[in-house]
């Protein structure tokens, strides 16, 4: 066979193979892709680092139910990672929207979730959520991006934009901070506003493996609103033993926070109290500030 003929044959066969692309058995283009970076790490990065999207849903009794969805991670751990969301949130995680008059809106569904970076301690490939009476954890939460959630929207009818779009959204949540000594209100304070970010925004997370992060693995929690007081109505004195006390600079006002000890996933609440005296007044007995 002449060279030209062989070349033509090879070219034809090559063109044949090069014609079109098939969807293979693992074909599943992601619905959304998130990008993140580890800003700091106070714990050694384990080999089995995984990322889950834990969706939170409030049931009619007000309990928070959590459903975990594993994410495909293309990691350049320990610094950068990329998350591919290739499935929709589980149906269990979907909330039904509310109309302005408080009735249910069947055309609007949403879900809110948090990214959880965890160590798959038992190696089963999933984040093991905890029962209410759990006394320990199975997997270990390494870090959760602060004040950041994933907001998912399904809407069969157009509606005025609130900043979110159909599909997956990245949302910055306002932070809730403890009251400051001397403040007019002795209750947790919300700082900042809810803000939607581009999906391409870089998600920053610090790996701390802090024990309180483990509560995000609870499948069900019943939160009790934190209680506070304001002005003369506060019964701020004496400070309950075991409280966390914060004083101002000259020691004339303070704020305490008393959280009742509880199990990992049980209901819990904290009481806040504030006290203040005039600078010229004598220091009362058991005044918590120096």
């Amino acid at each position, binding site marked *: 066979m002449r060279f030209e003929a062989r070349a033509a044959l090879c070219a034809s*066969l090559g063109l*044949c*193979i*090069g*014609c*079109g*692309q*098939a*969807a*293979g*058995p*693992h*074909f*599943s*283009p*992601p*619905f959304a892709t998130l990008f993140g970076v580890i800003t700091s790490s106070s714990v050694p990065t384990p080999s089995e680092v995984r990322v889950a999207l834990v969706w939170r849903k409030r049931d009619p009794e007000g309990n928070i139910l959590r459903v975990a969805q594993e994410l495909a991670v*293309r990691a350049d751990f320990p610094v950068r990672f990329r998350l*591919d969301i*290739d*499935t*929709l949130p589980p149906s269990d995680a979907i909330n039904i929207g509310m109309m302005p008059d408080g009735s249910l809106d069947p055309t609007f*569904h949403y879900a809110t979730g948090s990214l959880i970076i965890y160590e798959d301690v038992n190696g089963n490939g999933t984040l093991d959520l905890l029962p209410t009476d759990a006394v320990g954890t199975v997997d270990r939460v390494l870090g959760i991006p602060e004040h950041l959630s994933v907001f*998912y*929207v*399904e*809407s*069969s009818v157009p509606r005025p934009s609130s900043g979110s*779009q*159909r*599909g*997956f959204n990245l949302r910055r949540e306002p932070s809730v901070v403890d009251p400051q000594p001397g403040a007019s209100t002795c209750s947790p304070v919300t700082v900042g506003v809810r803000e939607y970010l581009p999906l391409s925004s870089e998600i920053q997370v610090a790996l701390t493996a802090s024990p309180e992060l483990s509560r995000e693995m609870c499948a069900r929690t019943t939160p009790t609103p934190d209680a506070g007081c304001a002005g003369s109505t506060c019964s701020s004195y004496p400070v309950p033993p075991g409280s966390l006390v914060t004083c101002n600079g000259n020691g004339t006002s303070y704020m305490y926070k008393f959280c009742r000890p509880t199990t990992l996933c049980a209901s819990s609440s904290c009481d806040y109290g504030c006290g203040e005296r005039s600078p010229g007044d004598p220091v009362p007995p058991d005044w918590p500030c120096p």
Partner: protein
Amino acid sequence: MRTLSRKTRWRFAVGLLTAHLVPLGDAVGAEEERLAVVVGANVGVSEDEPLRYAESDARRFRELLLELADVRSDRALLVLGGGPGDVVRALTEVRGRAAEISRSGKRVLLFFYYSGHGDDDGLHLARGTLPISELRAELLQIPADLRLSFLDACRSLGRPKGVQRGAAFALTATPDSPRGSVELRASSPGEAAQESEEYAGAVFTHFLISGLRGGADADHDGRVTLTELYSYAYRRTVLRTGTGLALQHPAFAAELAGTGEVILTRPERASATLEVPPGADRYLVFAIPSAAVVGEMLGGEVAQLAVPPGRFLVARRNGSSTAVATADLSGGGRRTLADSDFQPIPREELVLRGGRLEVRTRRIEPQIGIEVAPGSAQSVAARAGAELSWTFGAFDFELDLAYVGGNATTTGFSGSEQAVTGGPGVAWHSYLGRWTVTAGLGLELRYSWQHLSRPDSTRAADAGFATSQNKSYASLGPRAGVHFALALGNHVSAALGVSAAGLFHREQASLGGYDVVFRPIFFATGGLGYAF
């Protein structure tokens, strides 16, 4: 003139063979010119059932005269389907030419051949009967030194043949070249002559032609004499018709004067010759691609047959088995076939009409089956199509075309995938009794369509995502398989096949880009083959 009894006929034959020992008068010499009138009539009178092969026999006989008997084309008149007047006109024309040749001092030999219906009244032609007495009178008026008549006439009932007993010839001998009239008839009085589906012609004519092509050359001197021809045609016709319903004894009548042999053909001078080995019952030679029977050879000893240039299929019958060989003599020459040249033929490739052998080199096989492709989006699929194959000896060229369809599932989608697939291939086959086993290699070319949807398409649509993907792609790779076919009859065979192929194609990655991947597939098919 008289008709020889069988005993007398043999005496006559022995006499001619004895005469063969003396220097022969070369009847095919330069001083002799040969003329021929060849008549064929499928349709006789109204009571006659039309014959199938009378006219084709006439054509074959004329071609043989031109090829081996030194008859020029313009001197061989052919009358097909004509009436008595057409035959008489042809004889009249030949009479004039013979007279002209005679005036030039040359010897004239006349062949007259008739194939068609006939009875005691004469030759049954389409528009009437030509009385045998009138025919003989017309022949006698032709100024030929020697007149050779071959009458293969057939009565209508069951297509038997018969010719009226003729007036006796006076048998004399003089020192000159043979002169007079000779008449060879297909059967004796009271017998039926027969057509044969196997030979696609009359039995007697078949052996006349085979004998003239060299089958009758008993002394292997490269020449076929009148004696040899009659002896051969007589024996073979009796032997062949003896296995049928009606025995047929060819008859011979002669009025000759002179000495020397009458040499009819010289197969040694043929431009092409086929030679077959001994060890078989017989050989039938077919022309390719017409499948016309060219001649027959006995298989008891080395035998040869003069043939016109062309391609031939030689069928060897030995007991119940049949094998074939092909010979290409398009450029003439000699082809000596060896045992190794013959390939057994499966039953479904034989035409069984009367046992006539015909190789069906083409075969189509509709197939249905199942295809398995582990590790692919379409792991199981149905396959339906057809395979067309051409046989060349022990090898086949195959062409496959099939539809493949079924469900397809990926991690994120599910739907269907359909494909048109197939390609060329070559295969080698062997025979195990009624089974034909074929092993082949080929190329699989495939074009596929995928229609995929997300399983939660309503939610995905509400979330603003595309819910379906349509993809098409081509793939290509090698294919190998084994195929088992069981003959069920003359044309049909049942078949099972298993094949494997490895296809290369481009596969889209979930996160963009693509990879060239190799996908093995396995398929099993069942089908019904039809050889034609």
